[in-house]
């Protein structure tokens, strides 16, 4: 991938944890994010994903709601547990293709920092979205 050099100087060096069980989607996101200057780690399994997220070393967590062993909702709840010390400071962005009822979705959105329907965004649009997350 020699195109890396053509990319504009990246304004970010932020780290992203992508918890996503669809291999191809993870691959596309990793590719686009890496090109934009993000450090990306991908984890397929929910339990492992939670463990990694709890290390608190990621700026942003992309969280799919349908991952094996532990659902995204459970991971979100564990990470956003007010009793957690120290609190997870990572921004959590829900990425899903699951259709939720409005009220369920609103309940999830309250706890997360963003909610994206994967089919409605391209990898580039994901990068733009993350660029705008402070």
């Amino acid at each position, binding site marked *: 991938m020699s*195109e890396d050099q053509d990319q504009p100087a990246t304004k970010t060096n932020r780290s992203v944890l992508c918890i996503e069980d*669809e291999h*191809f*989607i993870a691959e*596309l996101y990793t*590719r686009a994010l890496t090109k934009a200057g993000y450090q990306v780690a991908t984890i397929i399994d929910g339990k492992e994903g939670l463990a990694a997220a709890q290390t608190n070393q990621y700026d942003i967590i992309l969280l799919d709601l*349908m991952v094996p062993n532990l659902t995204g909702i459970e991971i979100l*709840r564990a990470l956003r547990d007010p009793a957690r010390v120290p609190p997870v400071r990572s921004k959590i962005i829900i990425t899903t*293709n*699951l*259709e*939720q*009822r*409005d*009220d*369920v979705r609103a*309940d999830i959105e309250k706890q997360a920092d963003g909610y994206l*329907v*994967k*089919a*409605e965004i*391209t*990898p*580039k649009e994901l990068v733009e979205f993350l660029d705008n997350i402070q």
Partner: protein
Amino acid sequence: MDHLKQLRQKLRQVIFGLLLLENLLLLGGWYLGSLHRSHVTVIMLIGAGLLAMALTVLAMIVLSNLSLQPLEALWQAVLHISPTEQGVAAPDVNKLRIGKDLVTSLIFQIYQFADVANKAANEARVKNSDISQNFIAQNLPLPLFVMDASDTIIFANEMASQYIGIPVSDLVGKNVYMVLDMSFPSEDTLDNWLKGVKSKNATATGSWERVRLNVRDNHPARHFDLAAYYNRDNPDKNEVMLALFDHTKQYSQDDQAVSFIALSVHELRTPLTLLRGYIEVLEDEIDTTGNPELADFMEKMRSQAEQLMAFVNNILNVARVDDDQLQLSLESGDWPTVLKKAVADLSLRAKVRGITLHCRIAANLPAVGIDRLSIHEVINNLVDNAIKYSGGSRTIEIESKLNKEGLVETTVQDFGLGISSSIMPNLFTKFYRDHRNRAQIGGTGLGLYLSKAIVTAHGGSLWVRSKEGEGSVFGFTLLPYDQLTAELKKSGNQEITRSAHGWIKNHSMYRR
């Protein structure tokens, strides 16, 4: 008992004394008479008899008065404490010449009984008015809420607490709409009903079916029928009573159909996400400058992927409309910006079919009340139809202006096949498609059905004018934002939420 004995003794003594005196008088008269057997005798006898008679009458009066005195005092005591007799003084036992002790003790007993009865009545009254002490309210096997005139919960039973997953102590004192986030299947909400009855009725009852308690903090959604009782100025402040009849199992089965669609949509979306992702990578990284055909294919691929996505969203939204779940949140929007963006998104789809989109927007348009995503779909569907039914024509005119009624009217006009008048009435029916074209032109017959539902929910209307062979014009109106807010203010709705024919938030002001 001793007092009674004493009284009996005393009465006996008095009667005995009087009888003795009378007999002595008669005996004395008879004796004196026997000494002088003459007229004197007769006079003596008559005198003694008269004296005895007078004495008897006197004794009668004295005795009756004397013996009735205690009874009278008792009677007075009873009247004195009776709640129905006002102003009867308490008896003065010191004036009693007979049975003073007995009467004093009896009156004391009466007063004690009265006191006990009074206390019991008071307790019962308190128990009755304090609903939290009420056995039926506490143990009613239904969630029960009682509110005062300001809609503040003053009582909730254990069932209510369990049902909505909030402890009783956290319910009492809260505004009911803050803890019960309810959605109703129509504009006939609890809130609207209460407003009505509060101005008209002293008492009223109301009931609703298929009310939904929205998800909160992971507490599952509930479905129930609701019954309400209203009593203005209830002395115990129990102004409104709500009873909930759970039907979660039964009513949520109706959601299964949506779940099936939601699942299918998920399965469709994954490959779609990938397709769009890879197309983007290819567009970015394959140099097509020397190969216009390749560039054309790439555009076609992207436009088809976008169309597929629009289709998936259509299915979802139709499912929502059918299930009364399509909910819009209307906000102020700059219509030219929204329309231009939508048209720009669609121009690729038109371009790959050799069609140009012309967009003319009047300069004086006020801000409109719109739900951006949904209205985008309306434009999408109308332009998509125009593209599909353009036949050989190469332009589509999109125009937006303020109409005579002061509404923002947007039209999409094609110059293609047109619509036969015979099928016009069915145009907005779900799955309806023009049979003549079914074979040649793709589509689901959902687009117009959905668009109409969305526009209606915006408070506007969707219409069509068409002539076979000359093309069609589809138009829809949107309300200026100011007009929309004024209308909603009139209906007392604080936040702007609308639905196609579906869930209306009970009291949006308290939406979490």
